[in-house]
């Protein structure tokens, strides 16, 4: 890979990073919102470096006639290995594929991985607004907060409360019912974890459509930790257009 190709590759890579952050919100499909500024900075740095390399290369071309012959020695240390061409793959990914956020497919294929959230013995650490809400008030919650409450809260404060969840529809494996699911991301889509609840009281909508669902937790009998998946009885639901940040 010669220097011109290296410079152009860097410019394209920078352009891909900037396109997905500044021009569009594509980056939210892959990384956390807070990561945007870093991507912009990296995109600018790569584009500037690429332009500098191209300019230096063009300038050398102009001076070449008198320098030719001498210059061949030692100049080719600047060739990059063939593997560097692979840097164009993320560029193709952004501009041609524009990968969407993970959705129903990922939830279906990681079916077995869903279980109770991490044992967190301290119960004072729920970050939902359930305790502060007035009795009878509808509490908006992330699905993550909901399943955490459902699995860990031995006091079962969730019982009987009306809750509002937002997520996408995923048909269950047997095709009978459906889940409302949302992916939780620690850092990037590669580490996304599935949170889901089984919905009852409403017919299954099309997979990957987004819904805001109001209803109640179906309180299980017996030990909370023995429950494999939690149920949710729908009172009312409405379709929503994709939220700008598809992850929790």
């Amino acid at each position, binding site marked *: 890979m010669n220097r*011109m190709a290296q410079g152009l590759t860097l410019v394209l890579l920078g352009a891909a990073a900037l396109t997905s952050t500044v021009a569009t919100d594509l980056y939210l499909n892959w990384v956390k919102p807070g990561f945007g500024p870093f991507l912009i*900075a990296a995109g600018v740095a790569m584009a500037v470096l690429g332009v500098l390399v191209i300019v230096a290369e063009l300038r050398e071309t102009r001076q070449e006639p008198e320098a030719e012959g001498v210059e061949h020695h030692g100049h080719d240390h600047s060739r*990059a290995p063939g593997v560097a061409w692979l840097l164009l793959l*993320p560029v*193709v990914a952004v501009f*041609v594929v524009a990968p969407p956020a993970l959705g129903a497919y990922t939830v279906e294929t990681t079916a077995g991985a869903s279980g109770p959230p*991490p*044992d967190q013995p301290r119960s004072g650490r729920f970050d939902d607004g359930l305790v502060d809400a007035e009795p009878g008030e509808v509490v908006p919650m992330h699905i993550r907060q909901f399943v955490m409450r459902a699995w860990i809260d031995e006091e079962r404060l969730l019982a009987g409360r009306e809750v509002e969840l937002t997520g996408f529809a995923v048909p269950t494996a047997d095709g009978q019912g459906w889940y409302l699911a949302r992916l939780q991301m620690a850092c990037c889509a590669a580490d996304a974890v599935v949170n889901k609840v089984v919905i009852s009281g409403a017919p299954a909508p099309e997979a990957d459509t987004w819904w805001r669902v109001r209803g109640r937790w179906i309180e299980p009998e017996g030990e909370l930790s023995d429950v494999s998946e939690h149920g949710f009885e729908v009172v009312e639901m409405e379709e929503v257009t994709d939220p700008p940040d598809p992850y929790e």
Partner: protein
Amino acid sequence: MSDRTTSDAAPEPAFSPSLGDTLARGWDERVDELPPEDWGRRRGQRRTGTVWLFALFITAMAMGHAWLSEELTGQAFLAWATIFTAISFQALPFLVFGVALSAALTAFVPASAYQRFIPSRPSRAVPVAGVSGALLPGCECASVPIAGSLMKGGVAPAAALTFLLAAPSINPIVMIATAVAFAGQPEMVLARFTASLLASVVIGWIWVRFGRADWLRPPARSHGPGESRWKVFRESMLHDMMHAGGYLVVGGLAAATLNVMVPREWLLTVAGAPVISVLVLSLLAILLSICSEADAFVAVSLTDFSPTAKLAFMVIGPIVDLKLIAMQAGVFGWRFVARFAPLCLVVGLLSTFLVGGLLL
């Protein structure tokens, strides 16, 4: 239809011949020393050719964007593409940061400065390098080029390698992330710090004792004394970016493929077995190649596994994983990686069992 197929086939020649060449040649050889293939051709022509190639590539992408985007609806393919793009873009800022810092070290810090700070005896330099890894925020992607430039600056290779292992494992951001993920379990943070530092230093000492200089392809690039520092900075950044960046993509491809292909159900069936579960999570850490800043959140989500197994996931991940192996191969050569990666794995596991047994 026919023009659609040609349009997406167009960029292919750009990848395949050069990749094939590199594979056939063997990664170890110094590509730089070979005579360039187009020896004798005028460079100006070559450059024009490159520009045309890129123009063609961009046109092909525009056509692909117009026609192919609608066609690409395979669920598994899209999930794979999302994870690949996510890994690439997550790592990119860290890579750029690491490469810039490494280039700044090369260009602006004279070799004498290292000798002042880091003891010249390798066996003493190793622990110093290990502890200094706790100071620099950055992930694996950043530390590989930095370690390369430390070696160039005259730091003993073993000490630079210890830094390479310690920096992504125990830096402040990673420690904070671990504390957030394992809230209420400070012993996990302590165990991670201890086990990772121990493993890094022990690996450094083993390298001092048994390591051979010719296993390591030194990233030697001497710049003429007359060159301006900014030019050295630019050239060094370009070089590291191209070398480490290409391999980062290789690692991202591998990790995305495994992420989509390997069903996680079978992991859960082995979670109960004490030693096997530790080995399985170590293997998972190697395959998934998650950034060290994020791995604690993944570890905490693997609820069925024992604390020691989770510790193994967090100790092994930052020192051996597919992405790291590929990047190290780009900077130091395959002869090095073939010895270093197994060493890291074995020492990392021993350290995990020891610290996990004592603290968890």
